[in-house]
């Protein structure tokens, strides 16, 4: 085999409170597709950001074409020939293909731009790459796949020798994926090294010359093409000997009455026929990879987003939910995964946030808010949930993540919702506070609340959920009772579901 064009040795990177990467290795050869896999949060993106100069590494060495290099900035990475194509595209939709590719490097004639020269250069480039695109077309008129081609063309216009693609197919249709894969084959043939980040097993089988697995920021191992075996890869991704942790004591609640019955929930863009039941006192886990449709399901239930079909029954009656206010009135509360953006008024104090969802019950007949009553409730919740705050007048922005989450929970407890949908309830929360949140979830369930927990952390799902629903590609791909569930089984359903049908 040839010398690696890019080699990474012992890279580590920490962020406040988190070790994102710990002694990670990676190498990629010219004309090779290296598929990098790992669960959400395994460190794939952090590693790629280091290679493309967005982050700086804390420790470790990077070799490019055999020489050690320090990649100081994205510009530097581009000069070396390492280019990343991000998940979210950085194109200007009102400019043409050519203008996008050569943005910042426009050919000039004297003080003026030369559109003719620009289009010529771009057309030549596209032809050379065998990309069938009109250089003069506006990018906004192109399909997502074609836009991705523009991104790739742009990357290769820098003479990229290493091309990093971060889940490039997440927004593509099947035919578009084929177009992309054909281009990847061509690039390979011309000697470009490609690092392809994905967690889709079908793509891995199709593209990979080699696969490298990361887990929890650590390097787990690499497999060559002939050694690649999907169950083995999944096992490496989730880790065989991971402590599955404690599981809920009373595991099955399906004999309880059904509180929420969801049937055939669909949305225009993602969800297809999502159906499930939630029982009283049950904690139902929703597992799946990013983009599987878990958050979308929650938002569709409370009609935070429009749906194209499906019914929701609440306590045996069809629930007419047209907007989140209707859901809340029925007693369904949704705690967003994005606490800061969608859950809290950061600039407001604890009291304000605690009573926000139930303000009408704190006002008298002419609409005056009874601050005394509000403060009493806020104080009660602060001590009940053990929210660490100097006072109930503290701006929520100044609380820690765990305590912010507790304020969100307090808001819904004051509203007295019977169904609570927790979306990533412990994201950005440290270990100790996580345990408190888990305990709280179990306590709420024991009190008769019915709870949905959406989580990307499998141990968390197994830790709290009585039953686990797994989603992939907008569909439910499996349902597991806690006793039979394991990280491997969940991962299998989360990565395979869509393709097996």
């Amino acid at each position: 085999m040839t010398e690696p064009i890019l080699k990474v040795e012992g890279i580590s990177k920490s962020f406040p409170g988190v070790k994102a990467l710990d002694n990670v290795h990676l190498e990629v050869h010219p004309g090779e597709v290296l598929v990098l896999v790992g669960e959400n949060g395994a460190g794939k993106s952090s590693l790629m950001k280091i290679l493309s100069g967005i982050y700086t590494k804390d420790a470790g060495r990077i070799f490019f074409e055999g020489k050690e290099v320090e990649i100081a900035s994205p510009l530097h990475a581009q000069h070396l020939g390492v280019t990343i194509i991000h998940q979210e595209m950085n194109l200007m939709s009102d400019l043409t293909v050519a203008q996008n590719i050569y943005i910042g490097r426009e050919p000039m004639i004297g003080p003026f731009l030369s559109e003719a020269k620009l289009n010529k250069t771009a057309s030549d480039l596209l032809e050379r790459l065998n990309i069938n695109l009109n250089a003069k077309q506006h990018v906004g008129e192109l399909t997502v796949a074609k836009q991705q081609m523009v991104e790739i063309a742009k990357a290769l216009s820098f003479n990229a020798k290493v091309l990093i693609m971060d889940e490039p197919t997440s927004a593509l249709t099947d035919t578009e994926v084929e177009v992309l894969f054909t281009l990847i084959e061509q690039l390979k043939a011309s000697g470009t090294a490609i690092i392809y980040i994905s967690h889709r097993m079908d793509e891995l089988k199709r593209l990979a010359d080699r696969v490298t697995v990361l887990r929890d920021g650590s390097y787990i191992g690499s497999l060559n093409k002939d050694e690649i075996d999907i169950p083995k890869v999944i096992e490496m991704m989730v880790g065989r000997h991971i402590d599955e942790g404690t599981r809920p004591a009373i595991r099955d609640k399906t004999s309880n009455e059904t509180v929420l019955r969801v049937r055939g929930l669909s949305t225009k863009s993602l969800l297809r026929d999502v159906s499930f039941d939630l029982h009283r006192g049950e904690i139902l886990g929703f597992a799946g990879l990013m983009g599987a449709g878990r958050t979308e399901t929650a938002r569709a239930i409370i009609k935070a987003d429009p749906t194209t079909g499906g019914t929701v029954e609440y306590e045996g009656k069809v629930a007419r939910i047209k907007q989140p206010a209707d859901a809340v009135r029925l007693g369904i509360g949704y705690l967003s995964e994005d606490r800061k953006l969608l859950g809290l008024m950061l600039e407001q104090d604890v009291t304000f946030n605690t009573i926000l969802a139930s303000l009408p019950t704190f006002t008298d007949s002419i609409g005056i808010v009874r601050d005394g009553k509000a403060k009493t409730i806020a104080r009660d919740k602060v001590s009940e949930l053990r929210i660490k705050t100097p006072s109930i007048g503290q701006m929520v922005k100044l609380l820690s993540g765990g305590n912010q989450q507790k304020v969100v929970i307090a808001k819904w407890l004051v509203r007295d919702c019977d169904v609570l949908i927790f979306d990533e309830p412990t994201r950005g929360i440290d270990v100790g506070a996580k345990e408190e949140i888990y305990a709280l979830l179990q306590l709420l369930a024991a009190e008769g609340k019915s709870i949905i927990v959406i989580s990307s952390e499998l141990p968390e799902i197994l830790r709290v959920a009585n039953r686990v629903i797994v989603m992939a590609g907008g569909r439910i791909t499996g349902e597991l009772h806690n006793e039979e569930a394991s990280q491997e089984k969940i991962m299998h359903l989360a990565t395979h579901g869509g393709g097996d049908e």
Partner: protein
Amino acid sequence: MSLQTDSGPSTKGKKDMTVAAEKQGGGVLAFVKKQAQQSLAFGTLIILVVFFSIASPAFLTWPNISGVLLATAVIGILALGTTFVIITGGIDLSIGTGMTLAAVMTGVFIVNIGLPVWLGVLGGVLTGGLMGFVNGVNIAFLRLPPFIATLAMMLIAQGLSLIISGVRPIYFSGIADDFKLIALGTLIPGLPNAVLITIVAALIAFVVLGKTILGRYTFSIGSNEEATRLSGVNTRRWKVMIYTFAGLFTGVAGVVIASRLDSAQPQLGVGYELQAIAAVIIGGTSLLGGRGSILGTVIGALIMSVVINGLRIMSIQTEWQNVVVGIVILIAVYFDTLRNRASA
């Protein structure tokens, strides 16, 4: 409620210890920061008053002070309503010509139709409310950007004022001689009623913004509209109510200016909206929404009229007044961005 888990023994012991670190001591500092813009505006007002008092002995006399307050009345009332709109993160450009339309309608009701004064006044105020309602519906339900929706309403109100009045002022004298007393009478000796109305309006705005559910949702929508919606608040309906409520202030301003001039002047009004918005901004209300106060707006409106009055007393040409007001706005907003950067 105690935090007892029915889980295994794994991490139970340490959970009490590992609760996230606290950021203490934010309380007092946060409070000072919160008040900073207001204190700044208040300080500016004091300095201006002291400066003009020294510069001209005529400044700190009761007739002049009452003149300043009277001059503050109309802009002040407009500013009070629009404070609500701006705290939601919106803007209302229609309050200037909307005020004119309310004045014209008051004239139509009292002079042309011959309704009793109180009914005409009510009609004028409700005209303002109706415009606010339409703005609210356009913004909340048709999802038009507030700037565009109220810009259109500004033109509509301006046009309607001219059409309805026949491009002629409507005079109240002779038909309703009492009408001018609404603004110029003195229930409290020495203090024009217009000032009294402004004070009452400010008190109402203060209570509604600070103590009622409408005020709470005003802040809530301005802080984070989507989070408010997900909390089960019908944000669209509340936005309509907020714009309608703000519109009532426009209506009151229309009645007050008509009474003060003893006539409805259909050509008037353009530019008032920008002065009112300026007063709100000087008073520390954020154009980004979520933050603001009635007290700040009152001070902001006073600063504007004190500057104008002071310059006039010092016999500085009127042309310079706008220049100075412009500079005051720049300084006020600059300090506001400084404060935002500091807290970010």
